[in-house]
């Protein structure tokens, strides 16, 4: 099992991350990648009135703690699914609409493990990893509130089911 975690200001390249995962082992049968992009209506809960008004997002994190938490989330995923390699990259600093913000990649022998682990990692990363987003909406900066839907998404993995 090969793990790569990075919190970085630089952009990432899905092509490179895909190659890294693919080359981990010849037992690879499935590679799932998730890329999160900054949407132009990230603010609030999708209110139409705020569409197109996001100028930028600024991401803060707690160095060292974030990386450790991401590694813990990956270890948690390994208890549930059989994966051969996992990559988690999260950008910090100032991002613009349509910028890449987060990458999760999983390589596994069977496709279900890769799909489920990637989705689990995203769900937990959202509620556990120490990132905070500030939005610039037409020149006014505001910290974003945590979404109840993210807590609900993570809660679906509770219990012992592997599905």
């Amino acid at each position: 099992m090969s793990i790569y975690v990075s919190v970085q200001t630089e952009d990432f390249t899905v092509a490179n991350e895909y190659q890294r995962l693919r080359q981990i082992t010849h037992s690879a049968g499935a590679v799932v990648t998730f890329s999160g992009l900054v949407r132009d209506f990230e603010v609030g809960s999708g209110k139409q009135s705020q569409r197109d008004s996001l100028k930028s997002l600024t991401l803060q994190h707690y160095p060292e703690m974030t990386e450790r938490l991401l590694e813990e989330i990956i270890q948690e995923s390994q208890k549930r699914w059989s994966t051969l390699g996992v990559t988690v990259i999260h950008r910090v600093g100032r991002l613009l609409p349509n910028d890449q913000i987060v990458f999760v990649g999983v390589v596994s022998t069977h496709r279900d493990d890769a799909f489920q682990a990637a989705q689990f990692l995203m769900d937990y990363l959202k509620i556990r990893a120490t990132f905070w987003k500030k939005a610039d909406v037409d020149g006014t900066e505001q910290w974003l509130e945590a979404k109840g839907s993210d807590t609900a998404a993570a809660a679906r993995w509770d219990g012992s089911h592997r599905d």
Partner: protein
Amino acid sequence: MINLLFFGRLGDCALEVDKSILYQDDLATPLDVRDWLAKAHGDLGQVLSEPQVLVSVNKRIVKWDHPLADNDELAFLPPVTGG
């Protein structure tokens, strides 16, 4: 010394706060520090007391009555919004 960190919107309320405080007997837990901060900075005390705010010592989430030691890094964390 106890090093203080305030993340997310908590940071905006703590601009005036000295981020390095003397380690002393009556600041034995994060709760003590919070109460002490609230005396001088009422607004900050209020946001730090919101139930969603978590506290960490040396980058580990702890309870509010966790014992503090000299040179600890104490951080106040609002709900995270990454991803």
